[in-house]
C-alpha cells in the first residue's frame, strides 16, 4: 500500500510537471499580453508529432528531441507573426475565436499529415530501464527523467525571470505594459520572444511524453483545459503559481483516480464506491478549482482579479 502510494505520488508529480511545462508558456502569455490562446494545446501536440517524425528520421530520440525544440520555436514564431500579433488589442472574444479556428485547422491538418491513428515513439534504449523503489516495486527511468527535466526547466525559468534583464522586462511588462513601452522597451519584440519561448516549452513537453503516451490528434485538448485549470488555480501570470497549481492538479488527479474508490469504500459498499469513485475522480480537479476560486478568486498566487 505504501509503495503503491509512492508510485502514484511519483506519477502525480510527473503529470504535474508535464502540466507545468504547458501552463508556464500559457500563463506568461495570459499575464503579460492579456491574451487567450486556445491554440497552446495544439502546439504541444505538434511537438509530440514532430518528435515522432524526427526520431524516425534520425533514428535517435535524443536527436529528435533536439530538433523538435527549434522546430516548435519556429511554429510559435510563425503563429505569433501571422495571427496572434494582430489580436493583442482585440477583445477576448476575438482572441478566443481566432485561436479556436487555429485549433480546428491544426488538429485536422495533423490528421492530414500524420493520419488519425495513434503513433508512438520507441523508448530510448538508454532510458528504458527501471529503478527499484521500495521492495519489489520499480519505477521507469524515463518518467524520472521527465520529472528531472521539468524541475530543471522550472529552475531555469525561475533564474531567467527573477535574475536576468529580459526577465526583469518581462515582469515589468506584466505589471504595466504601457509604462514599459514608454520607457523604451520594444514590447512587440518582447511579446514575440515570450510567445515563441512558450511554444517551445509546450513542444518540449509534447516531445518528452511522446515515448510514454500515445501521440494522437486529441492529446492537446485534454491537456489544454487542465492547463487552464492550473493557471486559474495558480493565478494568471504567475509562473510560481503555475508550478504550484500544476503539481496540485497532477497529484489530485492521479491520486484521486487511484485512491478515490479505495477511500470511498470506507464509507460505502464496494460496488457503489467503485462506481462513485469512477464518476467523481475525473471531476476532482474541477471541484478543487471551484473551491480555490470560492476562497481566492484571483488564484493562489494571483495579485489582482
Amino acid at each position, binding site marked *: 500500500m505504501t509503495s503503491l502510494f509512492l508510485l502514484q505520488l511519483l506519477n502525480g508529480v510527473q503529470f504535474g510537471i508535464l502540466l507545468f511545462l504547458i501552463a508556464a508558456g500559457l500563463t506568461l502569455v495570459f499575464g503579460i499580453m492579456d491574451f487567450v490562446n486556445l491554440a497552446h494545446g495544439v502546439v504541444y501536440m505538434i511537438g509530440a508529432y514532430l518528435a515522432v517524425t524526427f526520431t524516425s528520421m534520425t533514428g535517435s530520440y535524443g536527436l529528435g528531441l533536439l530538433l523538435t525544440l527549434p522546430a516548435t520555436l519556429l511554429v510559435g514564431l510563425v503563429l505569433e507573426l501571422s495571427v496572434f500579433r494582430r489580436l493583442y488589442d482585440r477583445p477576448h472574444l476575438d482572441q*478566443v*475565436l481566432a485561436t479556436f479556428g487555429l485549433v*480546428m485547422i491544426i488538429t*485536422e491538418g495533423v490528421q492530414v499529415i500524420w493520419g488519425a491513428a495513434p503513433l508512438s515513439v520507441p523508448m530510448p534504449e538508454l532510458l528504458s530501464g527501471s529503478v527499484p523503489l521500495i521492495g519489489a516495486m520499480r519505477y521507469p527511468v524515463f518518467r524520472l527523467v521527465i520529472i528531472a527535466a521539468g524541475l530543471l526547466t522550472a529552475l531555469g525559468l525561475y533564474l531567467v525571470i527573477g535574475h536576468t534583464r529580459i526577465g526583469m522586462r518581462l515582469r515589468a511588462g506584466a505589471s504595466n505594459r504601457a509604462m514599459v513601452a514608454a520607457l523604451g522597451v520594444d514590447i512587440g519584440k518582447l511579446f514575440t520572444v515570450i510567445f515563441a519561448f512558450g511554444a517551445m516549452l509546450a513542444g518540449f513537453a509534447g516531445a518528452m511524453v511522446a515515448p510514454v503516451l500515445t501521440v494522437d490528434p486529441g492529446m492537446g485538448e485534454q491537456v489544454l*483545459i487542465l492547463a487552464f485549470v492550473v493557471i486559474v488555480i495558480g493565478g494568471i501570470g504567475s509562473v510560481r503559481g503555475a508550478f504550484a497549481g500544476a503539481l496540485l492538479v497532477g497529484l489530485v488527479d492521479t491520486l484521486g483516480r487511484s485512491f478515490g474508490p479505495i477511500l470511498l469504500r470506507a464509507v460505502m459498499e464496494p460496488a457503489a464506491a467503485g462506481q462513485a469513485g469512477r*464518476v467523481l475522480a475525473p471531476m476532482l480537479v474541477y471541484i478543487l*478549482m471551484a473551491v480555490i476560486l470560492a476562497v481566492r478568486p484571483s488564484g493562489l498566487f494571483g495579485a489582482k482579479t
Partner: protein
Amino acid sequence: MTRLTPTRAWAATILFAAFAILPMITQALGDSYLIVIATRILAYAIAALALDLILGYGGMVSFGHAAYLGIGAYAVAILGRAGITDLGAHMLAAIAVAAVFALITGAISLRTRGIYFIMITLAFAQMGYFFFVSLSAYGGDDGVTLNARSTVFGQPLLENNTALYYTALALLIGLYLLAVAITRSRFGRVLTGARENPLRMQAIGFSPFRYQLTAYVISGCMASIAGVMLANQASYVSPSYMDWHRSGELVVMVVFGGIGNLLGAVAGATIALLLEEWLALLTRHWPILFGLILVLVVLYSRDGLSGFFRSDRS
C-alpha cells in the same frame, strides 16, 4: 439597443416564415435529409440564442454552453430509460438540472472577469463532459441510443420528422420572443448597463452580480431545451454534446450572426451549420477550411460577419 424596430420585426417574421414553409419545399424536392439538417439548425439556433442573451447583452463570454446541451440531451436519455417519456417532463427536468448547474457554476465563475470567466466556464463544462463519460450505465464515452423519441400527451407524435421540426420551430419562436421581452425589460436594461459599466450600476443601487447570475441561469435553462431537441433529433445521446468544440461552435454561431441582436444568433446558427454541411461535401477535412474562414473573418472584419447583417447599427 434592442428595440424591436419595424425592420427587426420584419426580419424576424421573414426568417421564421421561411423556416415554416421549409418542410413543404423539402417535401416537393423529395429530400428527407434536409429536414433532419434543418431540425439540427433549429436546435442549435435555440442554444445560440441562449448564449447571445448573456454574451451579447451581459458581456459574459461563456465557453462552456455545450454543458447545457448535454444536460438537456441526457435528461431525455435518463428519464426515457426510467419509463418517463413525456416531452414536457423531459424539458422540465432539463431546465431544473440546468438551473442548478448554472446557479452553482455561474456563482463561482461570475466572481471573476475576462479571461478567467472564459477559462472557468470551459473548465466546468469539461467537468460535466467527464461526468457523463464515466457514467457507464449510460454508455460512457460511446453514449446511448434512445429507444424512442419523447412523447406528447402519451402519443409518439415526434417520431414523425416533420412534427419534430415544427416542435423545434415553435420552441425557437417562443424562446426568441421571450428573449426579446427579457432584453426590453428593466432587467435586460440593467444587464446591459452592468456590461457597459458595472461600477456605475453599483453606484445607482443595482448589484450587477445578481442580474448577471440570473441571466446566466436563464441562458443555461434555454440552452438545455436545445439539448432536449438535439437528443430527439438524433435519437442518440453521448458526451460529445458537451465537447468543448461544441461550446466553441456556439460562440462562432453567435459571432457569425452578430452579437447582441438575438435574431442574428438564429441566422448565425443557420450560416455556421450550412457552411459545415457544404464544406463537408467538398472535403473530409472540412475543419481546416472552416477554421481558416473563422480566422480570416476575425482578422479582417472587425465586426465579424455581423457587419453584413447589421446595417441598422453602427
